[in-house]
């Protein structure tokens, strides 16, 4: 596996250098430059939203900083949580005086570091709350949802909580909306080929030439099954079937769907998947609101795709539609 990079250790910092050069709405901040914030800074009087996570998932997590979305993002090395210091800085830089929601994916490292950062901030008077993305249904039984990993569906929580904060809601409300968004979202992914961590000697896993793995995580964590490659429609049927079987209690008939490339899978194939997914949702009596198709949360060059469903009620549907603007996603 080949990567367009210089020294592997510089992968993240050189990536961030390029990112902010191209997108002046983003600024690097923090002692080691591992926080991305809006160039305008935290808006006084707005609830702040700080996220964070490992690198290698662009546009996630870093790319979603902007009006109607995140205020700051702490950036870890590839597939590693951000350091406690970066988490701390991301929270501080998101603070506009009305508290900060820590909104990130449910991974051990990220959680420990954001927790430690919270402990350290207690005496600074910044009030914080936490909501963890846990949309990946392949990463745990429905009975232990809070142990599931966060994957692409996290962008719904970004969008919905971001809209709530932008509209002037207080920390309690923004936190409630984020938690509701997470509770309303389910994802599942499949992989066709691995990716490689820049510093590693080998790809994160191997998959036979004719094989597909259902339920694989965005760091190459093992999935539900591995088998011979199947037609796209059959794969989509299984994915949508699993997602609907895990539908949140009380879910209504409105749903937003995200068909996401994990990296190497081209747009063409995402549209082929979407076609079948849309038909299945219609058959299930669901109506699709704001379908999203593209690379929203990747694993570098991994080939594969994920599908996320976010079940919407009136409140969430309204928040989803409000304007938002970051370099990789513009709504309205």
């Amino acid at each position: 596996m080949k990567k367009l990079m210089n020294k592997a250790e510089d992968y993240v910092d050189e990536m961030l250098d390029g990112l902010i050069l191209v997108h002046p709405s983003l600024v690097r901040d923090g002692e080691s430059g591992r926080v991305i914030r809006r160039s305008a800074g935290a808006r006084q009087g707005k609830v702040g939203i700080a996220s964070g996570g490992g690198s290698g998932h662009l546009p996630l997590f870093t790319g979603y900083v902007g009006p109607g979305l995140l205020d700051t993002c702490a950036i870890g090395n590839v597939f590693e949580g951000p350091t406690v210091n970066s988490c701390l800085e991301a929270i501080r830089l998101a603070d506009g005086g009305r508290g900060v929601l820590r909104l990130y994916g449910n991974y051990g490292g990220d959680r420990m570091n954001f927790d430690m950062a919270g402990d350290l901030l207690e005496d600074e008077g910044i009030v914080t709350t936490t909501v963890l993305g846990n949309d990946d249904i392949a990463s745990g039984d429905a009975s232990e949802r809070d142990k599931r990993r966060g994957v692409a569906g996290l962008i719904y929580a970004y969008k919905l909580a971001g809209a709530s904060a932008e509209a002037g809601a207080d920390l309690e409300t923004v936190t409630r909306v984020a938690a509701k968004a997470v509770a309303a979202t389910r994802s599942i992914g499949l992989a066709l080929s691995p990716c490689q961590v820049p510093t590693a000697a080998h790809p994160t896993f191997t998959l036979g030439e004719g094989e597909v793995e259902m339920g694989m995580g965005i760091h190459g964590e093992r999935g539900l099954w591995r088998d011979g490659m199947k037609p796209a429609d059959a794969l989509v049927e299984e994915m949508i079937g699993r997602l609907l079987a895990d539908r949140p209690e009380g879910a209504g008939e409105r749903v937003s769907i995200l068909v996401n490339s994990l990296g190497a899978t081209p747009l063409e194939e995402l549209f082929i998947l979407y076609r079948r997914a849309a038909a299945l949702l219609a058959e299930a009596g669901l109506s699709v609101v704001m379908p999203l198709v593209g690379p929203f949360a990747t694993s570098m060059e991994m080939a594969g795709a994920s599908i996320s469903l976010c079940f919407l009620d009136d409140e969430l549907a309204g928040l989803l539609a409000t304007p938002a603007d970051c370099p990789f996603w513009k709504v309205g």
Partner: protein
Amino acid sequence: MAARVENLAAAVARALAGIGPIERDLDAADAQLGDGDTGGMIARVIGRMAATDLSEDRDMGVALTKLAKAAAAATGSSLGTLVATGFLTVGKAVKGREEVPWGEWGPLLATARDAMAARGGAALGDKTVLDGLDAVAEAIGAQDTREAVAAAALSAGRRSLVNFRDRPCRMGRARLHAERSVGRDDPGMLALVLLMEASLSPEAPAA
């Protein structure tokens, strides 16, 4: 006999010298069911610890805290963060002291183990680095020379690998594949043992 900052620095230096094959073995162990980065991450942590200048430090608490901060600055991974937590905990406990007798290290490691369990939410028996640490803390409790501590730690660590190999994992990324984890070493526990093998090799007895 007691551990001093020089012993700490020497142990880190030895770990650094031996990191090459350890890095590859740990990546491979983590790649089985996790995300394959344990080795690269540990190498970065050890590298950063080794680059920390302890030559002016005599206070064991200060030195351990510096090493904890080095680990915390190097990574935000689960294991790296737990390592930082462990060092920080022991550092706090020995603050202000230049020597920490070998006989105290069993209880100190037990404190670290408990702080790490509190931070990460794992329980003993989940087949994580904690179980290795627990075995080591237990085993070295009664020893009061460096050589005896090293020998007890190493054999307890290795035994914990064997004891847990055929048990299912209940924490971390491999948790979901409890059945598949049977027969495989936990990468965090393996890291503890390989690093002890590298850093606890014989050295000239401390002053």
